[in-house]
Protein backbone atom coordinates (compact mmCIF):
# COMPACT_ATOMS: atom_id res chain seq x y z
CA UNK A 1 0.00 0.00 0.00
CA UNK A 2 1.30 3.48 0.81
CA UNK A 3 4.94 3.54 1.70
CA UNK A 4 6.49 6.96 1.98
CA UNK A 5 9.15 8.45 4.19
CA UNK A 6 8.86 12.02 2.94
CA UNK A 7 6.60 14.06 0.68
CA UNK A 8 8.64 13.18 -2.35
CA UNK A 9 7.67 9.54 -2.11
CA UNK A 10 4.07 10.55 -1.43
CA UNK A 11 4.14 12.52 -4.66
CA UNK A 12 5.47 9.43 -6.41
CA UNK A 13 2.69 7.32 -4.99
CA UNK A 14 0.12 9.89 -6.10
CA UNK A 15 1.64 9.99 -9.55
CA UNK A 16 1.57 6.19 -9.74
CA UNK A 17 -2.18 6.09 -9.23
CA UNK A 18 -2.66 8.92 -11.73
CA UNK A 19 -3.45 6.51 -14.54
CA UNK A 20 -5.97 4.64 -12.35
CA UNK A 21 -7.64 7.83 -11.23
CA UNK A 22 -9.71 8.24 -14.38
CA UNK A 23 -13.30 9.02 -13.53
CA UNK A 24 -15.70 7.37 -15.95
CA UNK A 25 -18.21 9.75 -17.49
CA UNK A 26 -21.82 8.85 -18.09
CA UNK A 27 -22.30 7.24 -21.49
CA UNK A 28 -24.95 9.73 -22.54
CA UNK A 29 -22.98 12.72 -21.30
CA UNK A 30 -21.14 13.23 -24.59
CA UNK A 31 -24.35 13.36 -26.61
CA UNK A 32 -25.96 15.59 -24.00
CA UNK A 33 -23.05 18.05 -24.23
CA UNK A 34 -23.18 18.08 -28.04
CA UNK A 35 -26.94 18.70 -28.02
CA UNK A 36 -26.57 21.51 -25.49
CA UNK A 37 -23.81 23.08 -27.60
CA UNK A 38 -25.96 22.87 -30.74
CA UNK A 39 -28.87 24.49 -28.94
CA UNK A 40 -26.64 27.25 -27.58
CA UNK A 41 -25.22 27.87 -31.01
CA UNK A 42 -28.64 28.09 -32.68
CA UNK A 43 -29.84 30.32 -29.84
CA UNK A 44 -26.90 32.61 -30.52
CA UNK A 45 -27.69 32.71 -34.26
CA UNK A 46 -31.37 33.39 -33.50
CA UNK A 47 -30.44 36.22 -31.13
CA UNK A 48 -28.06 37.65 -33.70
CA UNK A 49 -30.73 37.61 -36.42
CA UNK A 50 -33.21 39.30 -34.08
CA UNK A 51 -30.66 42.00 -33.28
CA UNK A 52 -29.93 42.44 -37.00
CA UNK A 53 -33.67 42.69 -37.73
CA UNK A 54 -34.18 45.29 -35.02
CA UNK A 55 -31.18 47.27 -36.25
CA UNK A 56 -32.51 47.14 -39.82
CA UNK A 57 -35.95 48.28 -38.68
CA UNK A 58 -34.41 51.14 -36.68
CA UNK A 59 -32.24 52.18 -39.63
CA UNK A 60 -35.26 52.21 -41.96
CA UNK A 61 -37.34 54.18 -39.45
CA UNK A 62 -34.52 56.67 -38.94
CA UNK A 63 -33.98 57.03 -42.68
CA UNK A 64 -37.66 57.60 -43.45
CA UNK A 65 -37.87 60.05 -40.54
CA UNK A 66 -34.95 62.02 -41.96
CA UNK A 67 -36.57 62.01 -45.41
CA UNK A 68 -39.84 63.32 -44.01
CA UNK A 69 -38.09 66.11 -42.15
CA UNK A 70 -36.21 67.08 -45.32
CA UNK A 71 -39.48 67.16 -47.25
CA UNK A 72 -41.13 69.44 -44.69
CA UNK A 73 -38.06 71.68 -44.77
CA UNK A 74 -38.35 71.96 -48.57
CA UNK A 75 -42.03 72.81 -48.36
CA UNK A 76 -41.32 75.44 -45.74
CA UNK A 77 -38.61 76.99 -47.84
CA UNK A 78 -40.98 77.07 -50.81
CA UNK A 79 -43.43 79.08 -48.81
CA UNK A 80 -40.74 81.33 -47.40
CA UNK A 81 -40.03 84.73 -48.93
CA UNK A 82 -37.72 84.76 -51.96
CA UNK A 83 -38.36 81.13 -52.87
CA UNK A 84 -40.17 80.11 -56.00
CA UNK A 85 -42.65 77.27 -55.62
CA UNK A 86 -41.51 75.98 -58.98
CA UNK A 87 -38.05 75.05 -57.71
CA UNK A 88 -37.64 71.65 -56.04
CA UNK A 89 -34.97 71.71 -53.39
CA UNK A 90 -33.38 68.91 -51.31
CA UNK A 91 -31.28 70.42 -48.52
CA UNK A 92 -29.07 72.90 -50.34
CA UNK A 93 -29.28 71.09 -53.68
CA UNK A 94 -31.65 72.32 -56.40
CA UNK A 95 -33.15 69.27 -58.03
CA UNK A 96 -35.11 70.91 -60.86
CA UNK A 97 -37.62 73.47 -61.96
CA UNK A 98 -41.29 72.68 -62.38
CA UNK A 99 -42.61 72.70 -65.94
CA UNK A 100 -46.12 73.65 -64.88
CA UNK A 101 -46.93 77.25 -65.74
CA UNK A 102 -47.34 79.53 -62.81
CA UNK A 103 -50.76 81.26 -62.81
CA UNK A 104 -50.27 84.93 -61.85
CA UNK A 105 -52.93 86.34 -59.53
CA UNK A 106 -54.97 88.92 -61.48
CA UNK A 107 -55.26 92.14 -59.57
CA UNK A 108 -58.45 94.01 -60.30
CA UNK A 109 -57.75 97.71 -60.65
CA UNK A 110 -61.19 99.12 -61.40
CA UNK A 111 -62.55 101.71 -58.93
CA UNK A 112 -65.29 99.48 -57.56
CA UNK A 113 -62.85 96.62 -56.78
CA UNK A 114 -60.42 98.98 -55.10
CA UNK A 115 -63.24 100.42 -52.99
CA UNK A 116 -64.52 96.90 -52.12
CA UNK A 117 -61.03 95.81 -51.03
CA UNK A 118 -60.59 98.86 -48.85
CA UNK A 119 -64.06 98.34 -47.29
CA UNK A 120 -63.16 94.69 -46.56
CA UNK A 121 -60.01 95.69 -44.77
CA UNK A 122 -61.89 98.39 -42.86
CA UNK A 123 -59.90 101.30 -44.25
CA UNK A 124 -62.93 103.65 -44.36
CA UNK A 125 -60.80 106.80 -44.43
CA UNK A 126 -59.02 105.58 -47.54
CA UNK A 127 -62.38 104.79 -49.22
CA UNK A 128 -63.39 108.44 -48.95
CA UNK A 129 -59.95 109.54 -50.19
CA UNK A 130 -60.22 107.22 -53.19
CA UNK A 131 -63.73 108.51 -54.03
CA UNK A 132 -62.45 112.10 -53.85
CA UNK A 133 -59.41 111.16 -55.98
CA UNK A 134 -61.68 109.56 -58.62
CA UNK A 135 -64.01 112.56 -58.71
CA UNK A 136 -61.11 114.99 -59.23
CA UNK A 137 -59.66 112.97 -62.14
CA UNK A 138 -61.18 111.50 -65.28
CA UNK A 139 -60.64 107.91 -66.52
CA UNK A 140 -59.63 104.56 -65.08
CA UNK A 141 -56.79 103.99 -62.56
CA UNK A 142 -54.50 102.74 -65.39
CA UNK A 143 -55.23 105.88 -67.44
CA UNK A 144 -54.46 108.13 -64.45
CA UNK A 145 -51.27 106.05 -63.78
CA UNK A 146 -50.10 106.39 -67.44
CA UNK A 147 -50.92 110.10 -67.54
CA UNK A 148 -48.92 110.62 -64.37
CA UNK A 149 -51.63 112.67 -62.61
Amino acid at each position, binding site marked *: *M*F*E*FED*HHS*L*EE*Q*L*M*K*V*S*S*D*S*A*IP*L*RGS*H*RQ*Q*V*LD*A*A*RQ*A*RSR*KIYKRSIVAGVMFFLAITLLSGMRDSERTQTAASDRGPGWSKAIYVKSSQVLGISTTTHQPVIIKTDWNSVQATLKQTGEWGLVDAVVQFRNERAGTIEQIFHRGD
Partner: protein
Amino acid sequence: MEKQSPGKFAAKIRCCANDLQDHGVDKLGSLYDLTAHRLIRYAVTVTKNMSDAEDAIQATMVRIAVKPKILATAQQPWPYLLRVTRNEALRILQKRKPIQIFAQCRQLWARDSETVEENDEAQMIRKALKRLPTSQSEVVVLKIWEDMTFAEIANVLDESPNTVASRYRYALQKLDNYLRPMTHEDINV
Protein backbone atom coordinates in the same frame (compact mmCIF):
# COMPACT_ATOMS: atom_id res chain seq x y z
CA MET B 1 -5.23 7.25 -19.14
CA GLU B 2 -2.70 8.10 -21.82
CA LYS B 3 -0.17 10.70 -20.71
CA GLN B 4 0.72 13.23 -23.39
CA SER B 5 3.43 15.86 -23.43
CA PRO B 6 1.98 19.28 -22.52
CA GLY B 7 3.13 20.82 -25.82
CA LYS B 8 1.50 18.12 -27.94
CA PHE B 9 -1.64 18.21 -25.88
CA ALA B 10 -1.91 22.00 -26.23
CA ALA B 11 -1.39 21.72 -29.99
CA LYS B 12 -4.18 19.12 -30.22
CA ILE B 13 -6.54 21.33 -28.25
CA ARG B 14 -5.74 24.28 -30.50
CA CYS B 15 -6.33 22.10 -33.55
CA CYS B 16 -9.73 21.04 -32.18
CA ALA B 17 -10.62 24.67 -31.42
CA ASN B 18 -9.69 25.67 -34.99
CA ASP B 19 -11.84 22.83 -36.36
CA LEU B 20 -14.68 23.97 -34.16
CA GLN B 21 -14.34 27.50 -35.41
CA ASP B 22 -14.22 26.45 -39.07
CA HIS B 23 -16.79 23.64 -39.13
CA GLY B 24 -19.15 24.43 -36.27
CA VAL B 25 -20.51 22.48 -33.33
CA ASP B 26 -20.26 19.11 -35.09
CA LYS B 27 -16.53 19.20 -34.38
CA LEU B 28 -17.02 19.63 -30.63
CA GLY B 29 -16.95 15.86 -30.20
CA SER B 30 -13.23 15.65 -30.85
CA LEU B 31 -12.47 18.32 -28.23
CA TYR B 32 -14.72 16.48 -25.79
CA ASP B 33 -12.98 13.17 -26.44
CA LEU B 34 -9.59 14.77 -26.00
CA THR B 35 -10.22 16.70 -22.79
CA ALA B 36 -13.36 15.53 -20.96
CA HIS B 37 -11.76 12.69 -18.99
CA ARG B 38 -9.09 15.06 -17.66
CA LEU B 39 -11.45 17.96 -17.09
CA ILE B 40 -13.89 15.79 -15.11
CA ARG B 41 -11.10 14.72 -12.77
CA TYR B 42 -10.38 18.35 -12.00
CA ALA B 43 -14.05 19.39 -11.90
CA VAL B 44 -14.85 16.65 -9.37
CA THR B 45 -12.04 18.00 -7.19
CA VAL B 46 -13.72 21.40 -7.18
CA THR B 47 -17.36 20.30 -6.88
CA LYS B 48 -16.76 17.09 -4.88
CA ASN B 49 -19.83 15.83 -6.66
CA MET B 50 -20.02 13.89 -9.92
CA SER B 51 -23.24 15.37 -11.30
CA ASP B 52 -22.13 18.95 -10.64
CA ALA B 53 -18.77 18.16 -12.25
CA GLU B 54 -20.55 16.83 -15.34
CA ASP B 55 -22.67 19.97 -15.46
CA ALA B 56 -19.51 22.05 -15.23
CA ILE B 57 -17.99 20.14 -18.16
CA GLN B 58 -21.16 20.65 -20.18
CA ALA B 59 -21.19 24.39 -19.43
CA THR B 60 -17.50 24.60 -20.39
CA MET B 61 -18.04 22.82 -23.69
CA VAL B 62 -21.06 24.97 -24.53
CA ARG B 63 -19.08 28.11 -23.76
CA ILE B 64 -16.25 26.95 -26.00
CA ALA B 65 -18.69 25.94 -28.78
CA VAL B 66 -20.24 29.39 -28.77
CA LYS B 67 -16.90 31.21 -28.77
CA PRO B 68 -14.23 28.82 -30.11
CA LYS B 69 -11.95 31.63 -31.23
CA ILE B 70 -10.85 32.44 -27.68
CA LEU B 71 -9.60 28.90 -27.14
CA ALA B 72 -8.00 28.77 -30.59
CA THR B 73 -6.03 31.94 -29.93
CA ALA B 74 -5.27 31.29 -26.25
CA GLN B 75 -1.58 31.27 -25.41
CA GLN B 76 -2.04 28.27 -23.11
CA PRO B 77 -5.18 26.47 -24.22
CA TRP B 78 -5.13 23.72 -21.59
CA PRO B 79 -4.81 26.05 -18.57
CA TYR B 80 -7.48 28.21 -20.22
CA LEU B 81 -9.86 25.24 -20.45
CA LEU B 82 -9.14 24.30 -16.84
CA ARG B 83 -9.87 27.83 -15.77
CA VAL B 84 -13.19 27.93 -17.65
CA THR B 85 -14.11 24.59 -16.04
CA ARG B 86 -13.20 25.90 -12.61
CA ASN B 87 -15.28 29.04 -13.10
CA GLU B 88 -18.25 27.02 -14.29
CA ALA B 89 -17.88 24.59 -11.37
CA LEU B 90 -17.75 27.47 -8.89
CA ARG B 91 -20.78 29.07 -10.55
CA ILE B 92 -22.74 25.83 -10.16
CA LEU B 93 -21.68 25.57 -6.53
CA GLN B 94 -22.71 29.17 -5.95
CA LYS B 95 -26.17 28.43 -7.35
CA ARG B 96 -26.55 25.39 -5.12
CA LYS B 97 -25.28 26.99 -1.93
CA PRO B 98 -28.39 26.41 0.21
CA ILE B 99 -28.57 22.77 -0.83
CA GLN B 100 -24.82 22.47 -0.35
CA ILE B 101 -25.03 23.16 3.39
CA PHE B 102 -27.30 20.17 3.80
CA ALA B 103 -25.03 18.06 1.57
CA GLN B 104 -21.98 19.04 3.62
CA CYS B 105 -23.70 18.01 6.84
CA ARG B 106 -24.57 14.69 5.27
CA GLN B 107 -20.99 14.32 4.04
CA LEU B 108 -19.58 15.02 7.52
CA TRP B 109 -21.88 12.45 9.02
CA ALA B 110 -20.95 9.94 6.35
CA ARG B 111 -17.23 10.57 6.91
CA ASP B 112 -17.35 9.29 10.49
CA SER B 113 -18.91 6.03 9.50
CA GLU B 114 -16.74 5.75 6.42
CA THR B 115 -14.57 2.69 6.25
CA VAL B 116 -12.24 2.03 3.41
CA GLU B 117 -13.26 -1.36 2.27
CA GLU B 118 -11.68 -1.25 -1.13
CA ASN B 119 -8.04 -2.01 -1.68
CA ASP B 120 -8.01 0.24 -4.67
CA GLU B 121 -5.27 2.84 -4.14
CA ALA B 122 -6.87 5.31 -6.53
CA GLN B 123 -10.13 5.14 -4.59
CA MET B 124 -8.31 5.70 -1.32
CA ILE B 125 -6.38 8.64 -2.68
CA ARG B 126 -9.52 10.11 -4.15
CA LYS B 127 -11.22 9.80 -0.79
CA ALA B 128 -8.22 11.36 0.92
CA LEU B 129 -8.28 14.20 -1.62
CA LYS B 130 -11.98 14.71 -0.92
CA ARG B 131 -11.16 15.31 2.72
CA LEU B 132 -8.84 18.17 1.78
CA PRO B 133 -10.19 21.70 1.35
CA THR B 134 -10.95 22.39 -2.33
CA SER B 135 -8.27 25.06 -2.54
CA GLN B 136 -5.65 22.47 -1.58
CA SER B 137 -6.97 19.41 -3.40
CA GLU B 138 -7.22 21.25 -6.73
CA VAL B 139 -3.56 22.26 -6.43
CA VAL B 140 -2.59 18.63 -5.86
CA VAL B 141 -4.63 17.47 -8.85
CA LEU B 142 -3.17 20.13 -11.13
CA LYS B 143 0.38 19.62 -9.88
CA ILE B 144 0.56 15.85 -9.86
CA TRP B 145 -2.06 14.60 -12.29
CA GLU B 146 -1.93 17.48 -14.74
CA ASP B 147 1.85 17.88 -14.39
CA MET B 148 1.64 21.67 -14.22
CA THR B 149 4.17 24.05 -12.70
CA PHE B 150 3.28 26.29 -9.77
CA ALA B 151 3.31 29.27 -12.13
CA GLU B 152 0.82 27.58 -14.46
CA ILE B 153 -1.41 26.55 -11.54
CA ALA B 154 -1.25 30.09 -10.21
CA ASN B 155 -2.42 31.26 -13.62
CA VAL B 156 -5.38 28.89 -13.57
CA LEU B 157 -6.40 29.71 -10.02
CA ASP B 158 -5.63 33.41 -10.28
CA GLU B 159 -3.37 33.25 -7.21
CA SER B 160 0.31 33.94 -6.62
CA PRO B 161 2.75 31.05 -7.19
CA ASN B 162 3.86 31.29 -3.54
CA THR B 163 0.30 30.82 -2.30
CA VAL B 164 -0.12 27.86 -4.62
CA ALA B 165 3.15 26.31 -3.43
CA SER B 166 2.22 26.67 0.22
CA ARG B 167 -1.24 25.19 -0.40
CA TYR B 168 0.47 22.26 -2.08
CA ARG B 169 2.78 21.75 0.89
CA TYR B 170 -0.11 21.83 3.36
CA ALA B 171 -2.07 19.44 1.17
CA LEU B 172 0.76 16.92 1.09
CA GLN B 173 1.13 17.13 4.86
CA LYS B 174 -2.56 16.43 5.31
CA LEU B 175 -2.54 13.62 2.75
CA ASP B 176 0.41 12.14 4.59
CA ASN B 177 -1.59 12.26 7.81
CA TYR B 178 -4.66 10.74 6.20
CA LEU B 179 -2.90 7.96 4.32
CA ARG B 180 -0.26 6.94 6.85
CA PRO B 181 -2.72 5.31 9.28
CA MET B 182 -4.03 3.21 6.43
CA THR B 183 -0.49 1.97 5.83
CA HIS B 184 -0.09 1.06 9.49
CA GLU B 185 -3.44 -0.69 9.46
CA ASP B 186 -2.21 -2.76 6.56
CA ILE B 187 1.00 -3.58 8.36
CA ASN B 188 -0.86 -4.55 11.54
CA VAL B 189 -3.16 -6.77 9.58
